[in-house]
């Protein structure tokens, strides 16, 4: 369960050291007493995250709106509903569910969701991809942005890292889970298959892999560039339990798949969710194409995009 309801706008960086233990306690307490929010409440976050994404990418005229929008519901569901996690942020994440973003180019959605979950001030989103920012073009740790545990951007490395974190949890007798998101085009990288093979052999059954199955990569549809073919059959042949989720932009469907994944882990296999998403989801002119993988809207396009997504929690 998430840690929601923390006051926003607080400068967590300054407060961090003094209130860290208190905050963690509050957070855990909230997690316990808080009832599962309705997907309506989550939908409000989704709208705001979408606004943040297009505004961030517009603000620096670079970045990746397509994949970010496509994964908005997923990340909102994870951080605002499914995961046990601590916005006061401890890098080792002991006792918490962990999330890794292998397809680091969709950083905008992660940054926005982290900010709304209380990891860092929303105001920092305005510095996205700008000089001297902690909100780097691709997720990075060295500036100490809370919520990020490893850098990504060069594709294909995240599953391996997630496996290491999951195996560390086992050594630590920590029964929380590790989630990792990859792109579908990204699965063309061989390192993923090394990791997928290893995770099955070593029964890493505290790991949930989610594939952003949007069918698009930079140069075109995945099926045209270098098809993944029957991905479900591939993952099963590699010894994983596979969940198909054709409605990857539907909050309730996502939450259901994530719950099912958790149950399936009892079987000693790692689990993958093939999450059929729509690149650019929520901004009509960005949908049904790979064109918005990595370009920024102009002023007019921004206005159109914002008009389709009401401000719900306050723009940064």
């Amino acid at each position, binding site marked *: 369960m998430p840690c929601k309801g923390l006051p926003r706008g607080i400068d967590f960086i300054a407060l961090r050291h003094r209130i860290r233990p208190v905050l963690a306690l509050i957070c855990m307490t909230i997690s316990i007493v808080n009832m599962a929010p309705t997907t309506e409440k989550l939908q409000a976050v989704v709208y705001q995250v979408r606004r943040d994404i297009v505004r961030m990418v517009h603000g620096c005229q*670079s970045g990746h709106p397509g994949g970010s929008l496509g994964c908005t519901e997923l990340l909102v569901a994870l951080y605002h509903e499914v995961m046990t996690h601590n916005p006061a942020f401890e890098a080792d994440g002991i006792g918490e569910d962990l999330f890794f973003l292998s397809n680091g180019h969709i950083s905008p959605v992660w940054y926005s969701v982290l900010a709304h979950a209380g990891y860092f001030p929303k105001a920092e989103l305005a510095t996205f*991809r*700008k000089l*001297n920012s902690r909100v780097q073009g691709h997720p990075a740790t*060295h500036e100490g942005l809370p919520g990020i545990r490893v850098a990504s*951007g060069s594709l294909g490395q995240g599953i391996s890292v997630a496996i290491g974190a999951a195996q560390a949890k086992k050594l630590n007798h920590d029964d929380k889970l590790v989630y990792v998101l990859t792109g579908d085009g990204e699965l063309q*990288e*061989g390192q993923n298959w090394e990791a997928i093979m290893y995770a099955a052999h070593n029964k890493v059954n505290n790991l949930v892999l989610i594939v952003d199955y949007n069918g698009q990569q930079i*140069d075109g549809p995945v099926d045209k560039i*270098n098809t993944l073919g029957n991905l479900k059959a591939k993952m099963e042949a590699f010894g994983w339990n596979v969940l198909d989720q054709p409605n990857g932009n539907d909050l309730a469907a996502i939450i259901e798949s994530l719950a099912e994944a958790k149950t399936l882990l009892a079987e000693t296999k790692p689990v993958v969710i093939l999450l059929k998403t729509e690149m650019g989801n929520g901004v009509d002119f960005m949908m049904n194409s790979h064109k918005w993988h990595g370009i920024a809207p102009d002023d007019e396009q921004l206005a159109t995009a914002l008009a389709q997504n009401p401000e719900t929690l306050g723009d940064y």
Partner: protein
Amino acid sequence: MKKYTFTEKKDTRSGFGVAMAELGASNPKVVALCADLIGSLKLGDFQKQFPDRFFQIGIAEANMMGIAAGLTIGGYIPFTGTFANFSTGRVYDQIRQSIAYSGKNVKICASHAGLTLGEDGATHQILEDIGMMKMLPHMTVINPCDFNQTRAATLAIADYHGPVYLRFGRPVVPIFTERDQEFIVGKAWMVNEGTDVSIFATGHLVWEAILAGEILAEQGIDAEIINIHTIKPLDDEAVLRSVAKTRCVVSAEEHQIAGGLGDSIANLLARKAPAPQEYIGVNDSFGESGTPEQLMDKYKLNAAAIVEAAKRAIARK
């Protein structure tokens, strides 16, 4: 100081793209491979005009290097295209074994090198690629300075047998070399003769060196500026001749200080004729997001930094 002017700015990668389309027409043995970055590498024209000789590999750079090696066996001249990081560090062992050690005639063409990649940040801003590629036996390493020189270099390496690493970049920069220049692999280009300090620059830093030369000239300092477009094999003679005259050195590159052009020059001079040297390069740190200009300023890879370095070098004679 010799006058260099420009009327137009273009990205060096577009020089590559234009040359590839020309090569496609002129040399039926030239084939191109790309790892899901056709637009960034400016390979769209080649792809459209020569679809049979274009290989879309997908996001699998290691496989791309192996396939390129294999294509040489049937007599082809493969040009691989992806970002500089994924052209080198991602696939070093593949290049080493299947291309360099195997003596394969592959041209590894790398865009978005260095800090000027800009907003994507450190994971993409490779600053170690020259160092990696120059350590490889049998490898030629080229980093041209503008659109025209990149076009010329691309055309030249098609006729040069053996593995080549060709490095270029993303931002638009002044075009100040001649369109139909002769590009001789391994031959340094004398940009400006001078007597007080030797400035050896490569890639985007050549234009900054020219700007620095103008500022220095105003201050009465007569800088020799040499464009080292081929880092390996280094034009030893040109370097030694220049330093014999000026007795001090500035090296300037969009690369880590360790391992790049500067170290090739320091190595040569240490063996032949030691001289004080000042390095313009990134000092053992990763890059970050920002615009190309902001980053070149922050990390001191610009004319102002070269001017200061030249003065320090001269003071140490």
